[in-house]
């Protein structure tokens, strides 16, 4: 492929271009990469992706390219790179353990964005996301009228206007319904007014598009959602989906064009607030050994680490166990980066490693706090020799506060 006039730097920020120049290939990251755990293929490792992208930049922008013109880049090389960058779960464990401190959880989506702009990404079914989201408002190609109705618990009242709003998110609403049902049951137990957008207005938060590098529709989606919550007088927007919370906190302000007119909270934070102010009371205990898995975009993404543990510790009788890799060093369960539907074997492999460790530690239940994790880990149980109940944190918590 003849390198076109356009630079390979166009999708990256100044800091990301400095990061590209900073990898020393010390390979510390490889010890923490979950994709390496299941594939063992260094060609899709973080240092190799960075090295290849640096070569692309050199081909279009390096000193030689500027003096003598851009260099040809082999099409196969670009395709291999695209596959490598999409096979990643963007969990960010590599960046967390990077001896330099490269913010990889943010870098990989931007490399994907560059490949999208060149017509090489996204990968497989991910290419349908913009069309499906434009038509249905969600990436699952499901009708808006089925967004809440199959799971919304009876007896919980949603206000037209309220200070607090709940965003269910597409994955929870369509693919991990016990989780969002648990959220709303807990809202019911708190018994404070809260609002939700009508199902046809609660569209995708933009995360699947962001993480696959397809940025065209993002601004429109964000502006629609923000306008909806603003019209309802919302001051705090709560969601239990780490990916939604991540993009809301990190990217919505720039996509919206200014500071958001409300604060963003993760569901576990909202619960801890209400436990602390006495509006929420734990009514029953639970004699169980629970192991909590930190979702990558919640712990490394937005630093919500202790709140889920506080929620679980508030239940009398619970013995809280930890994975060997926990908190900022948690291991991806395979659900991240929109890779789970495309590289299913990898996702299954990672999810089963999560199950295996939970079983090995003799936990009674594996507790998650992310709809994508919930869906992936539960799906991987099929045909696996080790079994454990995989439940969402609010699913468990709703049972003890109602």
């Amino acid at each position, binding site marked *: 492929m003849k390198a076109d006039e356009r630079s390979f730097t166009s999708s990256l920020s100044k800091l990301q271009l*400095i990061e590209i120049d900073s990898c*020393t*290939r010390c390979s510390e990251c490889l010890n923490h990469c979950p994709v390496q755990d299941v594939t063992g293929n*260094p060609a899709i*490792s973080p240092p190799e992706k960075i*090295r290849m992208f640096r070569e692309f930049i050199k081909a279009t922008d*390096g000193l030689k390219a500027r003096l003598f013109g851009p260099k040809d880049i082999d099409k196969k090389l670009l395709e291999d790179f695209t596959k490598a960058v999409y096979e990643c779960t963007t969990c960010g464990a590599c960046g967390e353990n990077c*001896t330099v*401190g490269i913010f990889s959880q943010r870098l990989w989506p931007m490399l994907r964005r560059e490949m999208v702009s060149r017509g090489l990404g996204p990968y497989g079914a991910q290419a349908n996301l913009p069309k499906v989201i434009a038509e249905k408002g969600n990436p699952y190609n499901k009708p808006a009228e089925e967004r809440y109705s199959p799971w919304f618990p009876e007896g919980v009242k949603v206000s037209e206007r309220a200070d607090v709003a709940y965003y269910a998110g597409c994955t929870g609403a369509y693919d991990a319904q016990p989780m969002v049902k648990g959220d709303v049951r807990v809202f019911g137990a708190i018994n404070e007014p809260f609002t939700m957008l009508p199902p046809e207005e609660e569209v995708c938060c933009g995360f699947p598009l962001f993480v696959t590098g397809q940025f065209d529709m993002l601004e429109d989606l964000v502006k629609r959602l923000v306008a909806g919550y603003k019209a309802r007088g919302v001051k705090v927007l709560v969601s239990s989906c780490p990916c939604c919370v991540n993009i809301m906190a990190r990217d919505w302000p720039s996509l919206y064009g200014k500071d958001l007119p409300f604060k*963003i909270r993760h569901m576990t934070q909202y619960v801890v607030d209400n436990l602390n102010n006495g509006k929420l009371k734990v009514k029953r205990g639970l004699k169980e050994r629970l192991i909590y898995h930190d979702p990558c975009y919640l712990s490394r993404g937005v630093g919500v680490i202790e709140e889920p543990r506080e929620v679980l510790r508030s239940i009398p009788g619970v013995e809280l166990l930890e994975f060997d890799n926990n908190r900022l060093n948690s291991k991806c369960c395979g659900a991240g980066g929109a890779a789970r539907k495309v590289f299913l074997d990898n996702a299954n492999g990672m999810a089963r490693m999560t199950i295996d460790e939970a079983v090995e530690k003799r936990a009674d239940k594996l507790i998650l706090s992310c709809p994508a994790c919930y869906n992936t880990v539960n799906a991987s149980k099929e045909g696996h020799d080790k079994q454990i109940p995989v439940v969402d944190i609010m699913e468990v918590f709703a049972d003890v506060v109602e």
Partner: protein
Amino acid sequence: MEQITREVFWNIPVGLRVMFYISAVVASVIFAGGLWSRVSIWLRGADLHDDYVHGMGTLALARESFTKFFSADCFFAKRVFERSKSRGIILTVTIWSFLALFIGTLIIAIDFDLGLNFLKGDIYLAYSLILDIAGGLLGLCLVFYLVRRYLIKPERIVTFMDDGIVLSLMFLIVFSGFCTEGLRLLYFRPEMMDWSPVGYIFAGTFGLLLGDDKAAYLIAHRLAWLSHAGSAFTFIAYIPFSKQFHMFSAQIVTAAARARHERLRTILHD
């Protein structure tokens, strides 16, 4: 008693001295071109409002790179230490010894080229001892890196030609430097030569290899000097085109990572 010092460019004919200065200029020009090229690529990136380097131009980035070099994360390899104590020590020693040798080279260049002639007597002995130890330590660190990359490899490691070139050039600079020093010491056998402990070992080794053949010392010294100068200039010119460029960029990224971790505590917790 004879004044203790060393003659710069001893045993180097005028033609080679001229070549030395021409090579220095060529290497510096290539280095500057490469540096400009890479920094100008950085500046093409989007200047995001919440980026650590938001609003920074060339000078601000250069200042950031220089000042953050002395941060704990960089100067004491804190991020590496947190992950591996042995590698943290090795990297810290590498940084310190490299810096000592760099400053030492600057000092002798100033002393000689400006005709100041202050490197003599006790000052010279201290200078010689510090640089000798720094060179020895850097050499040991490079052996560690070479062994880790090519002999006793971790289970997962990614290595490319660039890694080999950088490590080989650095090792050649150190090794040829000690060969040059050792042969000079062997030739003159100065009274205080044991103030250059590593050079002293090299002198002893060459003494065993070459016997008392002073003419051989001179030829070997000139060859060693040529290797030292050649590898040093090649390394300088190669830095901006290699992974070794991280010596200018990594401290900015490390500082940004520190700031990002601070923000992680507030992003949803204000």
